[in-house]
């Protein structure tokens, strides 16, 4: 058996096997479970890299579940050729998302070794962690709308449980229940949309439905689009459905916050891109109207996230509001790309959205990991109780300052580059959009300067005496992510040319996505 032939499915089933086998491995003690989860998240990362290389080298990868050959996606039924089985369809966009997810997942797993040392039930934590990873990878790699829903449920249910994992605090249980209720409502809307599409077209494969929509658009699919959009806007944490995120991120253990903010909400953004550009296609929809809806929502999101983040006292809550604001930037890029599809502005919007998605995953993942370090070492999340941390934990503080400045869009870090592209793209549509985006960026800078000034610089309160940098297994992921931030800032063409541009081409080229499956 050739591994490269089965690489697409291996990315999904490797963490799945890890999740199933963790209960047995944890019988041998916590150390064994630690190593086990490290091995499986690391393997997933390696497989994602291999998958990305394969996609870059040979174009879209098709993997048909249950067929005699992975590439045979269709059946011949009385001369009619159409896909019947579930298939994974991996283009450059999916491969980019899979790479980001498994990267942050691997670092969060290693970070969890020491971070979760005071908690009980660590084997349950690891099981749910790997299931969360499986769910996200399944969503981004699949080429089937019902399969996407199934993996969305795996991701959501494990995320509910992980948010409420520290059940000894009332906050965590409350946040978990709220997330459960609103998340299930969103999942129901998405399921209804899948049902409508299946009812109208009798198929579940994205490529087949996209082809049928192109040929004969039924009025019902617009209802399905509204349902889909509402569901995934909630999953992406975009205003006005961002409120679960504000509760869930502070309450979850920090490695989970990093995953939630870094990649779980990005799967919502991925699904919105996939639905607009591939499932429906820009040709059949009223691009201007839908694009402006997204842009307006994005502008509100940026302002709400930025202005409310400015008044927070809780470090993780502040980071959560910042995530909302940054999701606004990604949505702005998507909206601009819809309005001005296939023009310079539209391409720049997509490049900016996807590059900001990658950058934000790295930056916010790192910032939440640092917030976890502070919580672990100091036992508090209140900014006012911190102070002078740069003298006590210099490496962590330096990384936080890099990340904070990067996310606020200060040159020469990576956040600036993606925001610059987004400013220019939105200014081509309407200069007012760019102005609002810059103002919101200033608000973000304001909230991070507050944290840096109060918590890291300044004078340490009497209570913080024996504080030092965390152990190596917690520090190394943070430092690597900080190095990535600097590299992507100084050499932005490195990620943009190698992975972002192919992903943008994949998003724009709906025809090649369809022709990879259909004859």
């Amino acid at each position, binding site marked *: *058996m050739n591994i490269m032939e*089965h690489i697409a*499915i291996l990315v999904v*089933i490797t963490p*799945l*096997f890890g999740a*199933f*086998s963790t*209960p*047995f491995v944890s019988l041998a003690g916590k150390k064994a479970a630690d190593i086990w989860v490290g091995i499986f998240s690391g393997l997933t990362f390696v497989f994602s890299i291999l998958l990305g290389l394969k996609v870059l080298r040979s174009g879209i990868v098709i*993997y*048909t*579940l*249950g*067929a*005699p*050959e*992975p590439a045979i996606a269709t059946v011949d039924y009385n001369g009619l050729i159409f896909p019947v089985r579930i298939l994974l369809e991996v283009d450059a966009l999916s491969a980019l998302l899979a790479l980001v997810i498994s990267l942050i997942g691997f670092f969060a797993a290693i970070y969890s070794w020491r971070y979760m040392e005071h908690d009980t039930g660590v084997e349950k934590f690891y099981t749910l962690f790997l299931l969360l990873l499986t769910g996200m990878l399944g969503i981004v790699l699949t080429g089937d709308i019902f399969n996407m829903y199934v993996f969305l449920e795996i991701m959501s249910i494990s995320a509910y449980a992980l948010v409420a994992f520290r059940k000894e605090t009332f906050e965590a249980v409350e946040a978990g229940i709220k997330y459960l209720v609103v998340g299930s409502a969103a999942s129901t809307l998405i399921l209804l949309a899948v049902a409508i599409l299946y009812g109208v077209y009798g198929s579940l494969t994205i490529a087949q439905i996209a082809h049928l929509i192109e040929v004969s658009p039924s009025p019902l699919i617009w209802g399905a689009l509204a349902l889909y959009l509402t569901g995934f806007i909630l999953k992406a944490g975009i205003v006005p459905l961002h409120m679960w995120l504000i509760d869930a991120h502070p309450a979850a253990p920090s490695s989970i916050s990093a995953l939630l903010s870094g990649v779980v909400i990005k799967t919502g953004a991925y699904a919105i891109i996939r639905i607009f550009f591939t499932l429906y296609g820009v040709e059949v929809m009223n691009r201007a109207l839908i694009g402006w809806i997204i842009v307006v929502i994005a502008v509100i999101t940026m302002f709400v996230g930025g202005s409310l983040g400015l008044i927070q006292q809780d470090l993780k809550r502040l980071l959560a509001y910042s995530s909302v604001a940054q999701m606004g930037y990604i949505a702005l890029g998507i909206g601009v790309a819809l309005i001005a599809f296939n023009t310079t502005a539209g391409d720049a919007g997509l490049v900016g959205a996807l590059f900001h998605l990658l950058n934000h995953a790295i930056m916010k993942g790192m910032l939440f990991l640092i917030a976890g370090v502070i919580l672990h070492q100091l036992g508090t999340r209140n900014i006012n109780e911190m102070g002078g941390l740069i003298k006590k934990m210099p490496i962590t503080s330096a990384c936080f300052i890099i990340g904070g400045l990067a996310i606020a869009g200060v040159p020469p870090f990576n956040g600036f580059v993606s925001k610059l592209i987004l400013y220019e793209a939105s200014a081509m549509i309407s200069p007012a959009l760019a102005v609002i985006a810059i103002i919101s960026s200033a608000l973000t800078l304001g909230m991070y300067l507050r944290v840096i000034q109060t918590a890291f610089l300044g004078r340490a309160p009497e209570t913080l005496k024996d504080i030092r940098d965390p152990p190596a297994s917690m520090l190394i992921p943070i430092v690597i992510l900080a190095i990535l931030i600097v590299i992507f800032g100084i050499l932005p063409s490195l990620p943009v040319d190698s992975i972002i541009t192919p992903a943008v081409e994949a998003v724009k080229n709906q025809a090649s996505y369809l022709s990879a499956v259909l004859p």
Partner: protein
Amino acid sequence: MKMSEKPYELSVIVRTVARLLFGLILIFGFYVIVHGHITPGGGFQGGVVTALAVIMLLAAYGYEGVVTEVREKILERFESLGAIMFWTLGLVGVIATATYFADVLYKGTPGELISAGTIPLMNIAVGMKVASGVAVLVIIMSIGMYYSRKYQKAEKEGAEE
């Protein structure tokens, strides 16, 4: 008739019938699981039927009476085992140079018990998983009920004092 010493148990008739029916329900559940590919039913349905046996015991004997016999820790491991089995059956296709979840085993004559390749084996794996999973869920729910009853009782006693 004299009430039972244990207030969480139902009457002796219910307990006796539950004890008698326990094996029958298990056998029926196994039947539904194993014949999943030739009769209506299958792993999910049969698994729930099998879990019903545990639910019935819980109804008749209460949480305190059952948890000494059926440990949810063991059931959880059993569920993981079922999941691993299902996962591995999918991998058979990869090993046999087809794809994941390809049905490559002996197909036989449709309608016979040993036919349809991996489908009956997958039914058994899913049945194992669903039976133990649903049983664990119900036991956990009864743990919750047990504790809430305990706290209510403690509160009531505290109020009486």
